[in-house]
């Protein structure tokens, strides 16, 4: 087995450098390694095959990037595809108002971790100022009722159970009535673990579904599950139309390929992941982290380093020197911006970087004319002004604005934006890669949260709604696909 997918890929794709385009033939060996990696991570065989077909289609015809090693380029495409397939995320429990009772139901195979997850959800809801009622509907396993009662006590949450009743459907019905009396606003049903081929028990689940009409049904899936994940997930989804998946036991060393399989066969979002035995160990699911895990760590970091190199080496060195001295002029800023805006390349690489998805989206919606506007402002400044923005007073600001054909406050905003970037850039100089990555993240966060880029858009009156953005993205993808077909 390879320590890292990259190691294997670099030899498999050696012949690629110097070639113009990625083709099925020159990638074959490399893609086989990716497939092997997926299979070793427990992605189901069919899903792995399907996935590889997609990736191949996407990759074929791509220009071999000069500064990215071919294996990095391929991993980048694979990584992006994994993220896309395991997304989009939806961490909402879709709760009704507090005056209503929302019913959540958990189901899954024996030993998947349902009861613990019920406790974790209860804790989370309580923290969100909700009043959950936990329901012991596992009448099968010895002491399952006691287990839930102990958890309820630990959490200070009410637990409904009926030790005399033999029919879990009746228990669930009674519990919902009880919830109204107790003033609970969320009911969580802990059902017994069962095999998906046990028709009698699956029928029982369907009856609970019909009679209690839960708002949300979640399937808990053990992260260590192998090839069988597709079978059980499909069966549970066929019977219950599940609304989401919760992966458990991700604190271990399982690569967790089941996540991909389950997402593929059910199509429902993976909501949360259990990362420990403690009741607070429930985290929102993030496709990018999961993708890294499935591919094996380390690959993505390397990719990031290379992405950094994509900035012209010489320019980078010169820049580095200046930054070390604490210099980062508006001219440098202009250069940075124009590199980021280079169509295609940077966007592609941002997509490859963990956590940079948002940034990429921001760039997607970044209008060329806006960029030109920014550059216009900078170009209207004198060299002295560019070197020291503090010189720019009200009258200079008016002059620059007139020269660039914009409003004076836009000049102001540009300077603010530059200041923010300059701070980060000069702080970055001389830092290690990890620190840089963190800072990039901070910068990205800053820009995303009403940073100047956002405001700028508002002024041009072109702020897009999420739906519009989505449509645009779709259109772009469609156009891209067409382009590829033509080649």
């Amino acid at each position, binding site marked *: 087995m390879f320590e890292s997918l990259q190691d294997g890929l670099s030899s498999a794709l050696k012949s690629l450098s110097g070639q113009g385009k990625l083709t099925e033939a020159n990638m074959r060996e490399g893609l086989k390694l990716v497939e*092997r990696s997926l*299979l*070793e*991570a*427990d992605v*189901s*065989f*069919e899903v792995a*095959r399907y996935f590889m077909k997609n990736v191949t289609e996407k990759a074929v015809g791509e220009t071999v990037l000069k500064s990215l090693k071919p294996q990095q380029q391929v991993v980048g495409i694979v990584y992006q595809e994994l993220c896309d397939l395991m997304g989009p995320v939806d961490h909402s429990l879709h709760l009704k108002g507090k005056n209503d009772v929302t019913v959540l139901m958990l189901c899954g*195979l*024996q*030993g*998947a*971790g349902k009861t613990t997850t019920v406790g974790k959800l209860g804790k989370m809801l309580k923290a969100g100022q909700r009043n959950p009622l936990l329901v012991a509907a596992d009448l*099968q*396993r*010895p*002491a*399952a009722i*006691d*287990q*839930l*009662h*102990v*958890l309820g006590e*630990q959490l200070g949450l009410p637990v409904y159970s009926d030790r005399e009743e033999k029919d879990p459907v009746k228990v669930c019905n009674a519990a919902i009535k009880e919830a109204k009396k107790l003033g609970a606003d969320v009911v969580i049903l802990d059902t017994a673990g069962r*095999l*998906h*081929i046990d028709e009698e028990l699956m029928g029982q689940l369907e009856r609970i579904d019909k009679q209690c009409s839960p708002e949300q049904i979640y399937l808990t899936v*053990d*992260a*260590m*599950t*192998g*090839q*069988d*994940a597709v*079978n*059980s997930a499909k069966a549970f989804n066929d019977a219950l139309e599940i609304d989401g998946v919760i992966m458990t*036991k991700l*604190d*271990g*060393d*399982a*690569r967790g*390929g*089941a996540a991909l399989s389950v997402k593929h066969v059910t199509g429902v979002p993976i909501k949360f992941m259990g990362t420990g*035995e403690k009741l607070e160990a429930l985290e929102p699911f993030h496709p990018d982290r999961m993708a890294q895990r499935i591919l094996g760590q380390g690959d993505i970091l390397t990719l990031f380093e290379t992405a950094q190199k994509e900035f012209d080496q010489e320019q980078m060195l010169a820049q580095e020197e200046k930054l070390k001295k604490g210099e980062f002029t508006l001219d440098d800023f202009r250069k940075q911006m124009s590199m980021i805006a280079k169509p295609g390349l940077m966007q592609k690489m941002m997509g490859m970087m963990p956590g940079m998805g948002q940034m990429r989206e921001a760039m997607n919606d970044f209008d060329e004319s806006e960029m030109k506007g920014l550059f216009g402002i900078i170009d209207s400044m004198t060299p002295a002004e560019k070197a020291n923005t503090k010189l720019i007073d009200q009258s200079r600001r008016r002059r620059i604005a007139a020269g660039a054909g914009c409003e004076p406050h836009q000049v102001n905003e540009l300077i603010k934006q530059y200041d923010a970037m300059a701070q980060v850039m000069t702080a970055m100089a001389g830092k290690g890669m990890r620190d840089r990555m963190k800072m990039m993240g901070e910068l990205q966060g800053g820009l995303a949260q009403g940073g100047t880029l956002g405001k700028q858009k508002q002024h041009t009156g072109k702020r897009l709604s999420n739906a519009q953005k989505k449509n645009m993205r779709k259109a772009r993808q469609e156009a891209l696909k067409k382009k590829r077909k033509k080649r």
Partner: protein
Amino acid sequence: MGLFDRIKKGLKKTSQVLNTDVRDLFKSEGRLIDEDFLDELRAILFKTDMGYDPAEELVSEVAKGMRGRVVQMQEVIDVLKSKLKELMAQDESPIRFADSGPTIIMVCGVNGAGKTTSIAKLACMFRGQDKSVVLGAGDTFRAAAVEQLGIWADRLGVECIKGPEGSHPATVAYQAVEHAIKSNADVCIVDTAGRLQTQKNLMTELTKIRDSIRKQIPDAPHEVLLVLDATTGQNGISQANNFADAAGCTGIVLAKLDGTAKGGVVVAIRQQIGLPVKYVGVGEQHEDLVLFNPDNFVDEMFDDALAAN
């Protein structure tokens, strides 16, 4: 139900899936063994969770001997069978009983694997052999785990030693062994809390539990069984590795083989770590345990297909 019938019960779904698929490969009399054929074969093998290397090994075995030929199903299956049997070869190894005094069995595994239930099944089996059994409720961590084992003990009419609230599992194990010696019991089975093999301190705790069992009987525990969930994928290898290291496992109980999962990761475990499978769990009741026999296991996987031909 006889032994073979029970294995059959557990493996029925397994073999159905395997056999239907293989049958599909041979729509007519014989079929040309080409790349497409080998790839279909590969899919079938991978779906057992046997892992990349064993599956590829089997495929190349078929390719080496038969590529370009038109063959009968029987031939392909014979090759696969003998290769698989070779991979899984082991002594039929039931429990190694102590020469004198109680036989101590320690049971470990990841969370939810089926440890407690498997202990109930083992206890039931020993009762059937007229052996007296003492259970040790060594899972002092999970909510209501002690109660769970206690309920099984009551159902089976065996003794269950429980420590006071908050006791250390090593103490409970010690007390269980002590009681087994005092009461002249034949077998003592110690439950442990589920843990992930990556939790270093909890794995060290397993070593401590084993050491505390040793204090009274130097060559105990006579068996340390790792319970492995049959739905587990390649992570089973890491489980076997780490539990063997920490607790000195002597064998595997493969639980939940009554589902559609094939438990093929034991092939990779066998190949890489050498840990044998001793028993197979085929249901939730206390009688749902069978002795593992690799030849039968492999034969049962393919016999139906041959019969149907």
